[in-house]
Structures are given as C-alpha cells and as structure tokens.
C-alpha cells in the first residue's frame, strides 16, 4: 500500500450555536487512491472536506495534507490541493477562459504556465471551443467540467471533489467520471470525494468511508465492506428434487446457508462468481442438472443500512436534490 497523504486525527467541528457537525474522526487516505466519503445530508461530509481544504477551521484535532498541517500551514496546504466545491463557484459574468486563468493567477503561477495548462485542461474536459463564452451560457454539465478543470490548474497532489455529480443526469454523471478518471491517470493525483450516490462510490472509490452524525462508522474497500455485512446470493433451479442436492451443497466451503423456497434453491455464498462453477459441478456430481442460475451481489446500500440502520437512497435523493434544484433556481433568477 502507498504512503498516507492525508492524515486525520481526532478532527472535530462544532459550529457556533453548538451544532456538533464532525465528531472526533480519524482516518488516513493513501497516495494515489480515490477515497469516497459517503453519507446522507447533514452527516458531516462537507464540513469534513471544508476542514481538510482549509476553508473551515477545525474546533479540535489535526489534519495533515502531504505533511502540512491545516491548522498551522493553511497557505502551504492550499497551494498543493485542488478544490471543486459542491456549489458552482465560477464567475458567471466572465468567460470560461477568464475563470480558469484567474484561478491560475491566484496560485501565483507564471502567465505562460497558466495559458498552457488552461488550454490543455479545457481541451481535456471538452470546453476549449466554448472558452470565450460567458459561463452563464453553460449547461450544468459544462459548468461542472469547468469547475473540475479550475481545480486542477495548480497540478494538485490532492483533489477534493465535493459532490462532483450532484444534480446531474445519468449520462452527464458518467461523462464527468470519465474525465475525473482520465485526469487522475494523467496527473497521478489522490482524489478525496464526497458523494451520496452509492453506485458511484462503489464503482470508482478505491476505499469508502461511511459517515453519519459526524462519526465515521466504517472504512474499507467497497467489496470488503459488502462481504463484511452480507454474502452473495445464488438462485438455482435444478432438474431433480431439492433434497438430493442439499446435502452436497451445504458441504461446499464457500456456501454459508442453503434454503429452499418457491421451487427455488437460495444459497448464500462468500464470493458468487468463484462459487458458481463449484456449485454447478457439485449439482452435476449427484446426477442433477442446473436449469436456471442467477447471482445477486449486495450493494453498498446494504452496507450502509447495516451500519446506519436506514437507507441512504431514500433519504438523501429527495433532500439534497431538492436543495440543489432550489439553488439552481435561485441563481437563474438572480
């Protein structure tokens, strides 16, 4: 495993008014990985990312980014990180080009470097042809791509993405992820992201942390987390009787549980894809044939439910998206 590039120790945030948003969390993020912080609205995701990117001051505790303390050396931290905020941050009255180069100047980069990088980044995210158009004419997906390119102008070691695909349609979300993965490969960055889209954390996160009520409940690789709370399930129909195969199936090493309901055998196994050939040959060995077989693997939602006792999908899809919509409408009106 790579070295830890983000070290968080007992980080705590209490807002004025006494709201405990983040409650003594500690974890590490390794160099080069995509680390996803997953949780519902109000869980403390944005507060955590805010303290790590130095826009919020921790009430207690410490965090280091590439060896620099967010408390004592915030300027050093800022110069080696890139931030893509949850809300759109580009200036709508300026063009895409003016926005990205402005950010370059704020990092103190030389003019030539800024021009070269801005050109390269805007080409990568497919905005070069509209670079001289005002941002107010951009669509949601275009704005998000601009934000991401703006977050990369200083070639950051760590990129913070706060809900990078919030409020975007499925196709645009997939495209954004395409860009993120390409940029990560090109620049060899560590990516720290927050999301409430479980399938994104599952598909793209090297490791996932689940946060709720300001506390981290569990951290691990998505597959490990899923395996830790539940097994894969095989649904099988055989040519003969259930009783003839039950004995042989329950002796197989990966099989944890065998049940028979509605003419179908349900088997809980440790790792579905590797268990299938074993199960099939065991059934064949007692002279039976497999008529039908399907595999169901647990999703992160089940992991989430296991640790928090509620489904993330139901609760946040409505709230956060309504919030994002309201924000968009407000901007449109202003």
């Amino acid at each position: 495993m790579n070295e830890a590039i983000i070290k968080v120790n007992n980080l705590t945030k209490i807002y004025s008014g006494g709201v405990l948003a983040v409650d003594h969390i500690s974890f590490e993020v390794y160099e080069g990985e995509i680390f996803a912080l997953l949780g519902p609205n109000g869980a403390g995701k944005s507060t955590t990312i805010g303290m790590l990117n130095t826009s919020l001051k921790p009430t207690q505790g410490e965090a280091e980014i590439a060896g620099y303390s967010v408390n004592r050396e915030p300027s050093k931290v800022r110069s080696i990180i890139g931030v893509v905020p949850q809300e759109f941050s580009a200036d709508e009255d300026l063009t895409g080009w003016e926005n990205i180069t402005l950010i370059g100047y704020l990092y103190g980069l030389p003019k030539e470097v800024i021009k070269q990088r801005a050109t390269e980044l805007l080409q990568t995210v497919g905005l070069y042809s509209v670079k001289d158009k005002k941002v107010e004419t951009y669509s949601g997906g275009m704005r998000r791509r601009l934000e991401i390119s703006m977050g990369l102008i200083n070639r950051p070691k760590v990129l913070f993405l706060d809900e990078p695909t919030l409020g975007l349609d499925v196709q645009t979300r997939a495209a954004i992820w395409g860009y993120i993965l390409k940029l990560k490969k090109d620049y060899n960055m560590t990516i720290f992201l927050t999301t409430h889209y479980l399938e994104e954390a599952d598909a793209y996160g090297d490791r996932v942390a689940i946060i709720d009520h300001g506390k981290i409940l569990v951290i691990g690789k998505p597959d490990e987390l899923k395996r830790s709370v539940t097994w894969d399930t095989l649904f099988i129909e055989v040519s003969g009787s259930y009783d003839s195969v039950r004995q042989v199936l329950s002796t197989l090493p990966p099989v944890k549980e065998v049940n028979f309901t509605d003419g179908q055998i349900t088997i809980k196994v440790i790792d579905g894809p590797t268990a299938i050939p074993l199960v099939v040959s065991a059934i064949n060995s007692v002279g039976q044939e497999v008529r039908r077989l399907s595999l169901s693997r647990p999703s992160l939602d089940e992991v989430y439910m296991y640790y928090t006792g509620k489904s993330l999908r139901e609760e946040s899809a409505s709230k956060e998206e309504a919030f994002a919509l309201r924000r968009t409408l407000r901007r449109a009106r202003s």
Partner: protein
Amino acid sequence: MSEGRLSPLHGLWALTNRELKKWYKEPVILLLSLVQPILWIGIFGKAMNFANMFNSASLEIPGLTIPKQVIDEIGSLVLKQTFGTTDYFSFLAVGMLSFIVLFTSMSSGMTIVWDRRLGFLGKLLTTPVPRGSIIVSKVIASIVKSLVQATIILLIGILLGLRFSFSIMAPVAFLITYLSLFLLSFGFSSLFLMLALRSTRWETQMAIMNLLNMPLLFSSNSFYPISSMPWWLKPVALANPLTYANAISRWALLGITPSVNVLLSLVYLVGFAVIFTVLGIYLSWRYLSL
C-alpha cells in the same frame, strides 16, 4: 505543485481586473448608477436656485421702495456669506462629486455578499491568495469606479453650467480634488467591505446602505454650509469625511474659503482612509470566511 515563494500581493491585480471587467462589460449598470446624481444636479441644482429668491424687479414695502440694484447687491452678499459663492449651482455640483463617490464606494460591500452567495468566495478561500488581497482588490476596483463616475458627473456639471474659479493652478486644483475623492473612496470602500465581511444576505447590506447614505449626506456640507447648521449638527458634520472632501474640492475648484484648513482636511482624509483600510485588512484575515 507548490510554485516557490508567493509574493504577498500575488493575485491582487487578477482580482481587481475581475471586478473592473464585471463593471465595464455592463455599461447599463454604469449608466443607471449615474442617474441619481444627474437628477440631483439637473433638477435640484437647477430648481433650488437660491439666486432666484432675489430676482424680483423691486420690493414694494409700504412707504419704502427698494430698487432692484440694492436687492441684487443684498442677494449677492447673502449668498456669498452663506455659501462662499454667488453660484449655488456650482456649489452643489462640486458637492455631488463626493456624493457619487460615497454611493459607489458603499456598494463595494455588496460585491462580497454576492461573491459569497454565488460560491466564488468559497473557491477563493481555498486558493493561497492572501485574504488581504481579496479585500484590497475590491477597494481598488471601487476607487477606480468612483473616480470614473465622479469624472462623468464633473463633465455633466460643466455642460449644465458649472463655472470654475480656481484658487490655484487648474491642474493642481484638479489633482487636489481627485486626491481628496480618492481618499474618501478608499475609506468608505474599506468601511463598507468591513461591514459585509460576515454578511450572507444582500438585504442586510442594502438596509445598512439605506440607513447610512442619507444621514451621511445630509450631515455633511454637500447641500449647505456647516455655518447654517444647528449647533448639535455641527460636530457631526465636522466628523463626517464628506465635509472635508467637499471643503477641499470647493476650495480648489471654486475658490471658496473653507472653514477648516485645507491641509488639515487632507490629513483627516488620509487618517480616515488608512484607519479603515488597515482595520479592513486585519478583520479580513480574522473573519473572512464562508
């Protein structure tokens, strides 16, 4: 990647340029912001013409006829004694310069509220740009806007009949006038940015502006001299920076002898600008956040 040592002023020009770009790319807003002072000069300045009070051909008091010449003489003397000039329109038009500077500088606070509301400030705060640069860029932009607007008002004033009576060489007179307006804008921009540092609602900022603009204007010598104020208003007027900017401009451009020494007035304005700017930068380091 970190790019060596950053100068404490890096990003200042880029941010100032952004503010100004947003302004000159929207000429409609520039024109709208000129409407109010133009109305003041055009309507108030032309209609509220004190010289007209003494325009009667002659006054008929029973048993006594006062010839027009005498009335004219008395009129000039009264105006001269009250305003320091017989030309009230010019008196008001020069006063309007500080008026437009005040109004333009006041709105600097709004830009920080908008930047916060639209997420731009949040992004700024995650870059290594010094917090002081964020404030100073807004102050500089606000000064540039103020002085451009003041120049437009000055030109309109001349078109409508403003007559100069320089007390020193004309170029020096303009230089001193602009210096006083520059200092006035410096101080007021910093003051109103400071008030907006933590503000998240533009309504609050508007309320502050509305609360302060008229009292600041009417407790200064913009429309009438301090000598004609009631005793309790005089100390307020003497604390009001507008009073000093007006006194300096009227002395330089119209030859009106100020009630306070010109040099002391300049010193007062320098103090006003420096104190609020230093305070503004200090507070922005401490309190500028999301």
